[in-house]
């Protein structure tokens, strides 16, 4: 997703009451499956102010009615979600998830597959955007090359519907905002800062991931995305209506190995979308498995 660094005067944002916040939070959760923590109240407040200005809503109550209306609601909700998730894409975005993957899920899968001599790991970043998630995985796995992943074949596939972001992913050049969460160790080892704020990803990392266009609604193509050990799909399903969401998640379920894991974004939920997946909890998050 494109970066939007337009300055915004948060002071001018109308204050949202607890009641309005809870009402909107519940509505967004029920429709989109993403939860707004209380700590994000002020963030939501400032983002809402922009949308209220655009839609001519004077109060939070008016805006709530507006997003709920059948005619305009869904489109408006997507625009609000854009405001809320726009700046989130970056390397090492979800640390608790990555820690759990390194500590538990990766060693577990390596042990299971290693036992049967099947030394191949397949990872899918669905809705990869400009590639940060896929390349984060690539860097983490490269670090295991000398140990548990010695002689393993690693395939990381990033897909997105948007050709522009895929071109950026293939290019592998990022700005300082994208690398803001990257631990120094990885930044020094796998990026070259060619000019101030221009970070070029090392060929070693780029080689590990490939990117292609895919529409998650395309049932035929989805059938061919087979046998993944890990699937990541963060902040994508929130844009889908319930029926499409269920269908897409069923595809992910089918495309996952029996011992694989499916990860969604940090505040997302699949509750009521698919009753086959089981939740596996870890410090700071959870994932889904079969």
């Amino acid at each position, binding site marked *: 997703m494109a970066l939007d660094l337009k300055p915004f005067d948060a002071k001018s944002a109308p204050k949202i009451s607890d009641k309005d916040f809870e009402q909107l939070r519940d509505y967004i959760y029920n429709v989109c499956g993403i*939860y707004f923590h209380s700590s994000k109240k002020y963030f939501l407040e400032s983002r809402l102010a922009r949308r209220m200005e655009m839609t001519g809503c004077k109060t939070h109550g008016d805006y709530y009615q507006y997003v709920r209306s059948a005619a305009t609601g869904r489109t408006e909700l997507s625009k609000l979600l854009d405001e809320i998730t726009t700046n989130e894409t970056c390397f090492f975005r979800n640390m608790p998830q990555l820690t759990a993957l390194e*500590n538990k899920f990766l060693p577990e899968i390596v042990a299971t597959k290693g036992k049967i001599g099947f030394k191949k790991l397949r990872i899918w970043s669905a809705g990869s955007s400009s590639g940060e998630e896929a390349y984060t995985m690539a860097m983490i796995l490269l670090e295991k090359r000398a140990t548990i992943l010695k002689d393993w074949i690693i395939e990381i596939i990033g897909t997105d519907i948007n050709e522009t972001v895929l071109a950026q992913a293939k290019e592998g050049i990022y700005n300082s905002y994208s690398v803001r969460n990257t631990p120094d160790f990885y930044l020094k080892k796998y990026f070259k800062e060619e000019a101030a704020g221009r970070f070029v990803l090392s060929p070693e990392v780029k080689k590990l991931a490939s990117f292609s266009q895919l529409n998650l609604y395309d049932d035929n193509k989805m059938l061919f995305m087979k046998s993944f050990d890990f699937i990541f799909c963060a902040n994508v399903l929130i844009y889908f209506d319930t029926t499409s969401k269920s269908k897409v998640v069923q595809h992910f379920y089918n495309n996952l190995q029996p011992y694989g894991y499916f990860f969604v974004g940090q*505040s*997302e*939920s699949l509750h009521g979308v698919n009753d086959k997946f*089981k*939740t*596996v*909890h870890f410090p700071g998050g*959870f994932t889904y498995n079969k």
Partner: protein
Amino acid sequence: MEKAAMMQAAQDMVESFVDLPTIPQVATRVIELLDRPGVELDEVADMILADQVLAARVIKMVNSPLYKPAHEIKSVKRALIYLGFRHIRELAFTCSFVDVFEGRDGIFDIKSFWEHSFGVGVVAKIIAQRVRYPDSEKAYLVGIVHDIGEVFLSYYRQDAFRSLLDSVQGRPYRLVDKEAEFLGTSHSEVGLCIARKWNFPPDYCEVIALHHAPEEAVLDPTLCAIANLADLFCSVRQLDYGGSSWVTFNLAEEKAWGILKGYSPALADLDVERFCYELDDRVPEIQEMVKSIFQGIGA
């Protein structure tokens, strides 16, 4: 490891603890009042008022974000009216209990112990309400005391505890299993010995002993299962002894989940994801409350 051997090891260990604190008299009195039917509000009020430190603490706590009064409450009497009898009982117990562990910062500091314990108390109460367990205050109280063994184990056996934590760096583990391996007993057995010394009621003792094995409970398996699940959820939502434990769990495979679904089939529809996110929202409240009970009281 053999259960009887672990129990024996715990008993020997607790006997060897030098300066094991005694439970404050006021806490013993509150415990006596816990299960006695027909206790009068005045009895509890008198008891609180007789102890200035306790009274000050009750007022501090009732004003913390967890209880959310609309206006500041300045007297014990107002606190009683605001909270009602059942809640004042739980508050009095908590406040009377706080000093027991003073200065017992071991490998785990006392603040993170209390954050975890209050967290488990609060979550246990929420789960109890969801499954319609008849005494949700009891669920809160057992949550507060479930890990008393941990304080003493991590304080009196610091060297062994440190080796334990060093050995698990970067690997998932359950503390209770690692303790058995490194110390020949665990915080469950040690906690039970202490709870008996302090004359805790039998169902409280059972939770302390079996909060990691609710399927073995006899007196109240539901209560043990509630404490177990609350403990698990807190361990993955920032109320985890400052990150010292590293737990993962598959909810569908947890015995406590099975026990509670048997007790209340509607639990199967629980939105577990949202439950976790709402718990995240309560973490600052719980941390704030722990801060409030230790702050500015000249105990």
